[in-house]
């Protein structure tokens, strides 16, 4: 039984390897899952095709009932938004994905976005728990310690940013100095020109 499951795992991993390798061969940057999500306006969107493809983006995870780290991240991201000025919604898009899709329906996210004063170009997203979990893992909002990983508040402290057009991605603490985050994001837009 153990051998069989190991073999199965091997087969699965080999299959996923060839897909990943083919993708890597065809593109310079990582390929992100194209799962279906919903915006705070209840609009269905494909994660890769509609949100990422060809764009410079800033991605964070949050949940509306999060009391400590998420509000601090949001306050910081609002400052980053301000610093980015006219780039927001034109060259740069912010995406905040919920870690608690059960509670965070589009309506709840809509209210939340309004309450914190998110400006144009900042979209809040929910979807199926399994899809959001897959995105969380692939974007690296994880911890190898299962206890820490199970604590949702641990995943609100990062922002992934990148420019899909050139496959340049990186990640930063979301509480970093907002001018530093804005400068980093501007640097990756810069290489697009």
């Amino acid at each position, binding site marked *: 039984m153990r051998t069989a499951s*190991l073999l199965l*795992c*091997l087969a*699965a*991993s*080999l299959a*996923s*390897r*060839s897909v*990943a*390798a*083919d993708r*890597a*061969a065809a593109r*310079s*940057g*990582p*390929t*992100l899952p194209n799962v279906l999500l919903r915006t705070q306006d209840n609009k269905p969107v494909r994660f890769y095709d509609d949100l990422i493809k060809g764009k410079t983006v800033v991605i964070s995870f949050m949940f509306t009932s999060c009391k400590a*780290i998420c509000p601090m991240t949001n306050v910081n991201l609002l400052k980053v938004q301000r610093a980015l000025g006219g780039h927001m919604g034109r060259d740069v898009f912010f995406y905040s994905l919920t870690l608690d899709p059960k509670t965070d329906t589009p309506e709840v996210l809509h209210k939340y976005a309004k309450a914190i004063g998110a400006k144009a170009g900042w979209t809040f997203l929910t979807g199926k728990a399994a899809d959001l*979990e*897959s995105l969380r*893992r*692939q*974007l*690296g*909002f*994880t*911890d*190898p*310690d299962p206890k*820490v990983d199970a604590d949702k*508040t*641990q*995943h*609100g*402290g*990062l922002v*992934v940013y*990148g420019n899909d057009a*050139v*496959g*340049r*991605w*990186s*990640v*930063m*603490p*979301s*509480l*970093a*100095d907002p001018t*530093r985050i804005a400068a*980093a994001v501007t*640097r990756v837009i*810069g*290489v697009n020109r």
Partner: protein
Amino acid sequence: MTRREILKYGSMAGGALLAASKGGLPRLYANATQSPATTPFRDPLPAPPAPMAVAPFTLDQGALDDIARLESAGVPKGTVIANYYKLVAEKRSVYSHKDFEDRGLKTSIWGYKDANVPVWDFAPGPTFNAFINSGDAVRLTNNLDPLDPGFGFPQLTMHQHGSHLPFRSDGFAGSAPYNGATFNPVAAPGGGHYDYTYPLLDPGFLSDPRGGDITERPSTLWYHDHILDFTGPNVYKGLAGFFRVFDELDAADETKGLRLPYGDTSQGDAGQFDVPMVIQDKTFAADASLVFDPFNHDGLLGDKFLVNGKIQPYLDVQGHRYRFRFLNGSNARFYELFLTNAAGKHFPWTVIATEGGLLDHAVSVDSLLISPALRFDVIVDFSLFPQGEKLYLENRLVQDEGRGPKGTFEQPETVASGVRLVEFRVGAKITDKSQNIQPGMTLRHFTAIASRELSQATRREFVFERSHGAWVINGQLVDLNSPMAQPAINGPEIWHLKNSSGGWWHPIHIHSEFHRVLSRNGNSPSPYVLEQDGVAKKDTVILGPNSEVEIYFKFRDYTGPFVFHCHNIEHEDMAMMARFDVAPSPGQNSI
């Protein structure tokens, strides 16, 4: 190897098996991707040559200002720089393994090359050979395309790792305010350049009555990119090279000084017995392109082991003593290095140097625990083995995740049979003029820091922690704009480095000066990693899970901004770095 060992080890097919067997969703990139199979020991170990000196050229004002400051502080005029070099950072394609070459599959990398050479076939940059008190000026021209797609960031700043240098030439991580102006160390892509001055003067040359502390001379340094947020991908992509420093004791001549293995300079085989080896792990896609996961900030592990840019190469050795200079140039992987034979028997290493230069005396150890950025120089006498024998540089450490190896610092987990990184093929015995260095033999004698000096030291504590998926030092994310500490020039300092981050390992590197390890977890430093004061000097100290060390420094000669950081480069890029400014002090000479 048993299946359990394969699973633990993550070698060959093990990495993918492991990723899948641990449950949860496999990661998209390197940690879930498996490189194509390659046959070990098909490529000779590459030996990147030295750069060719160029005619003196007019340096940029910042470099000229550094030279002028040194001259006005008393260094004889016109002697600061003896040699001029030109390096280029470029995108190039190299064969990482013969199996790839057979199929015409090149790996695209970013690398340094000697500007005099039209094509540089190596992954690492040129190996510099410098002599103490004979300075080098190096112009780095950044020929990377600002629009070059993929991972990494094409703005560059080159760190001379382990060297005692003016801050301007240290490879500071980005532009920052200093002394009322903006200091910008970046060589911009598309042809921008930056001039580095490496005076290579003995630490304390401005204050030490002996004219400098000759016991603090480096031997194996390396240079690598150090740009803020992107050092991990940039080093992984290839931006690294060796920088050897010699003097009258370690003389690049096996008939002089300590007569360390080097090669007969009169026979045109100079350097063949002094072999630097940079060990790196990487993952390759089916087309031999490098795979990098920009979303992995635990620490990037590869499933292929490269030495000097080739996967598992071999080295034909003669029956002669060799000096190997091991550098762990990996982003996050630790190794425990053994010298083994085909039957799995291992032989001790005679260690002569760490990253802090020659040891006080040679030491025999069974294995070398080497974290990212650490160096060990060892002597191996191949005349003791029969012609035709095959020996191996073998890694037996278990590490399957970026946070560090399995086990504890005191007892890392090893396997009986690990991965062979290099095969040494023993040839015929030949005449050997080098000295037969035996354990216990004095190399570069120095004494441990006296207790009176320690009692006068300024004490500082730095806590290395995880915070919401990132890493902090004393609760702070990296901030290049303001210093976390301002040690005064020539003031003794004791830094208490504390790892409070659970199961994470952090190799901590402090720029500008070597340090002495005074204690580990309240006890004596570990003889196991050759870190104790009186035996070794260091530029990087390993913090195992929940461990703490006390280290001693004195910052001499050079004031200004430097950094210290974790050398698990993903941790460094995720903010585990701090600026410190060495401050001038009344009555103390400095520039």
